[in-house]
């Protein structure tokens, strides 16, 4: 009886740990490349400027998100109000995170950590591939993110990055979805959290 219970518990553990829904309906295939890339913020010549709408616990905020590649492994990420006052100003350089400026109201550890993780995931350009999955229309690359994983979903034909899903071993945490007409710049970006009620929608400024 005890053995049965132990086996049941063990199997529940094993099954739940395999039940990450991110890869449901996908089949694992052989590696075809060692690194996966997100090139949406990779051109140092471009000022990436987006109108941002943030919904947190049913409250709405707006602003402007500005991303610029300022070095081989370095991105500046600045968020301002519509009037131009800075709300935060971060720099990501490899694994180094620098907080240049944060308004007092936002300068709380748990908020900074969420923003840091989200924007690092957004601007990070390449990661080592752990596994590759496929469906009829998509190719999915699994990468390690400290204790967690990231899944990069590409539209199969044009190798266009459609979304990145950040997961723990068992649960999806954050999903970043992209739309891009040209494939080089993301026109819209949607960052959605599953464990907290936070959603960030970004829309690229129209060219004049």
């Amino acid at each position: 009886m005890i053995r049965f219970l132990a086996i049941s518990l063990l199997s529940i553990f094993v099954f739940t740990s395999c039940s990450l829904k991110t890869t449901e309906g996908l089949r694992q295939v052989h590696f075809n490349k060692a690194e996966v890339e997100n090139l949406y913020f990779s051109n140092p010549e471009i000022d990436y400027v987006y109108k941002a709408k943030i919904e947190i616990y049913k409250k709405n905020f707006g602003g402007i998100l500005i991303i610029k590649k300022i070095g081989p492994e370095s991105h500046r990420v600045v968020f301002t109000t519509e009037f131009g006052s800075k709300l935060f100003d971060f720099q990501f350089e490899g694994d180094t995170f620098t907080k240049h400026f944060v308004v007092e109201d936002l300068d709380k550890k748990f908020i900074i950590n969420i923003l840091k993780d989200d924007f690092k995931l957004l601007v990070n350009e390449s990661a080592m591939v752990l596994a590759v999955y496929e469906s009829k229309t998509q190719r999915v690359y699994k990468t390690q993110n400290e204790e967690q994983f990231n899944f990069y979903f590409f539209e199969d034909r044009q190798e266009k990055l459609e979304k990145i899903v950040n997961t723990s071993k068992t649960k999806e945490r954050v999903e970043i979805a992209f739309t891009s007409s040209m494939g080089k710049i993301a026109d819209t970006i949607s960052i959605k959290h599953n464990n907290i009620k936070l959603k960030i929608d970004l829309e690229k400024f129209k060219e004049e």
Partner: protein
Amino acid sequence: MNNYFLILFLIVFGSAIQAQETAMNTSEIASFKEKVIASAKMTKSIKTDFVQYKHLDFLADDVKTSGKMIFKSPNLVKWEYTNPYQYSVIFKEDQLLINDGGTKSKVDIGNSKLFKKLNQLIVNSVKGNMFSDADFTVSFFKSSKYNKAVFIPKDKKIAGYIASFELLFNKEDAQVYEVKMVEPSQDFTRIVFSNRTLNITINDSVFSN
């Protein structure tokens, strides 16, 4: 050699010299203030286009947005951005009424002293009449093109957000035509007004969401 250098210098910096500013003397300050206050008193309403430039040092170009601003005396203001997106804010008593591309929201600013101060700045800077504000040290400059007032916050908390606040005034009618907010990092926001019409009738319904 010296002359040659001077000529070169004038060619390169000529335009800057043209607009060179000098500090106003006491009597100039007094008459300038008087003119601005008189002009602000006469101003019952303002409707104007504006272009906003957000300058960040690391960017190739300033972030440019534009729209319309409507002011009705004594303290109703609407900022409406129309390019490249639709976004409007109405300053009304202790509230901000926001319409972000169709998503409407309301922010109470009654409790936040800092926010109230920042909004008061925006409202007053539209009229230009903020010389009596005890929270700022004001200095005055003039050039052939404009008169300029520079406001430096005394309050440490405000100084954490704004290093200085500059208003440029037309020489003729003493109206504000440019606002510049400089951050402690020296990045700044510049708002340039154009196509201004004064004292037309503006319905109160403009200031509701």
